[in-house]
C-alpha cells in the first residue's frame, strides 16, 4: 500500500503532509477557522456534530493536495475508526431530553448519534459511491485498523481510501490522523504500521 497525503488534527493545531498550517485558533474554533479559510463552500458544516466537524475538515484538508481531486467515483473507500463512537453528540442529544419540563428532542442532533454519519458526510461531499465503514475500537490500534484497510482493498473495485482515526470526546476534544491510501501507485510513499505511527506521533 502507498499513500499520497496525511493530516493530523488536534485542538492545538493542524499538520498537513508533515507541515504545520498557520491558524490563530484552537479547539472547536480551530475547525471553524480552517473551514472558513480552506474550505468555505459547504454550509452544512455548521450543522454537523463535533465528530463530523473534525472528520469533515480533516478529510477536506487531506484531499486539498490531490490533483485532480477525485470526485464522483466508485473506487474510493472511506475507512474510519475511533474509540468514543458518537459520544460527543450523544451527550448533546441527551441534553435535549434530560428533563420533563424541557423535553425537546432535536432531530438535527439526533441524526448524528451514529459515528458512521461522518463517513456518509465525506461520501456525499465527494460523491464517493465505494465502501464506507466506521468501526469503534477499545483503543487506538493501528494493527487492527490496517487489517481493516487491507480487507477493503481485497475488493477489486477499491483503489484508494480515506483511512484513519477520528476520535472526538467533545467540541474541544478531538484527535484525528488521516491518510489518503492507495492500493498501489508509482512515486508514492509506502504505507504500513510503522509509517502510520510516525505520522501519528507528529
Amino acid at each position, binding site marked *: 500500500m502507498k499513500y499520497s497525503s496525511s493530516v493530523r488534527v488536534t485542538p492545538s493545531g493542524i499538520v498537513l503532509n508533515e507541515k504545520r498550517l498557520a491558524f490563530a485558533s484552537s479547539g472547536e474554533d480551530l475547525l471553524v477557522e480552517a473551514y472558513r479559510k480552506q474550505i468555505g463552500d459547504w454550509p452544512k458544516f455548521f450543522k454537523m456534530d463535533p465528530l463530523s466537524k473534525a472528520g469533515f475538515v480533516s478529510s477536506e484538508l487531506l484531499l486539498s493536495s490531490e490533483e485532480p481531486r477525485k470526485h464522483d467515483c466508485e473506487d474510493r473507500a472511506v475507512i474510519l475508526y475511533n474509540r468514543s463512537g458518537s459520544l460527543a453528540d450523544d451527550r448533546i442529544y441527551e441534553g435535549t431530553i434530560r428533563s420533563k419540563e424541557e423535553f*425537546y428532542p432535536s432531530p438535527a442532533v439526533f441524526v448524528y448519534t451514529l459515528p458512521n454519519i461522518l463517513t456518509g458526510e465525506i461520501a456525499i461531499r465527494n460523491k464517493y459511491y465505494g465502501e464506507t465503514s466506521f468501526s469503534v475500537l477499545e483503543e487506538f490500534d493501528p494493527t487492527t485498523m490496517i487489517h481493516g484497510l487491507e480487507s477493503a482493498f481485497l475488493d477489486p473495485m477499491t483503489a484508494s481510501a480515506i483511512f484513519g482515526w477520528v476520535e472526538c470526546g467533545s467540541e474541544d476534544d478531538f484527535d484525528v490522523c488521516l491518510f489518503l491510501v492507495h492500493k498501489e501507485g508509482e512515486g508514492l510513499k509506502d504505507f504500513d504500521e510503522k509509517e502510520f505511527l510516525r505520522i501519528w506521533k507528529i
Partner: protein
Amino acid sequence: MEDLKTEIKEKVIEALKLADITPSDIDDEAPLFGEGLGLDSIDALELMLLLEKNYGIRLANPAEGKKVFVNVNTMAQYVADNRTR
C-alpha cells in the same frame, strides 16, 4: 407583527445554525425550502420543534407544516393565530 417576524428569523437562524446569515438577509416572502434558505427535511422537523418550544404550538399533522413553513410571513401569521405562550 414586524417584531414577531424578526424574532422568528432570529430563532430560525439559531435553531438551524445558519451561519453567516442575519435576519435582514431573509426576505419575508422568500421560500424557506427549495430555493430561498435551501432547508431540508431535518430542518422542517427542527422548525416544528421551534414552534413547540418557543410558542407552545404543536403541529398535530406534520403535513400542516407545508402550509405553515412556506415563508416567514406564513410562519409569523400562524404563530400569531395559534401561540399559547
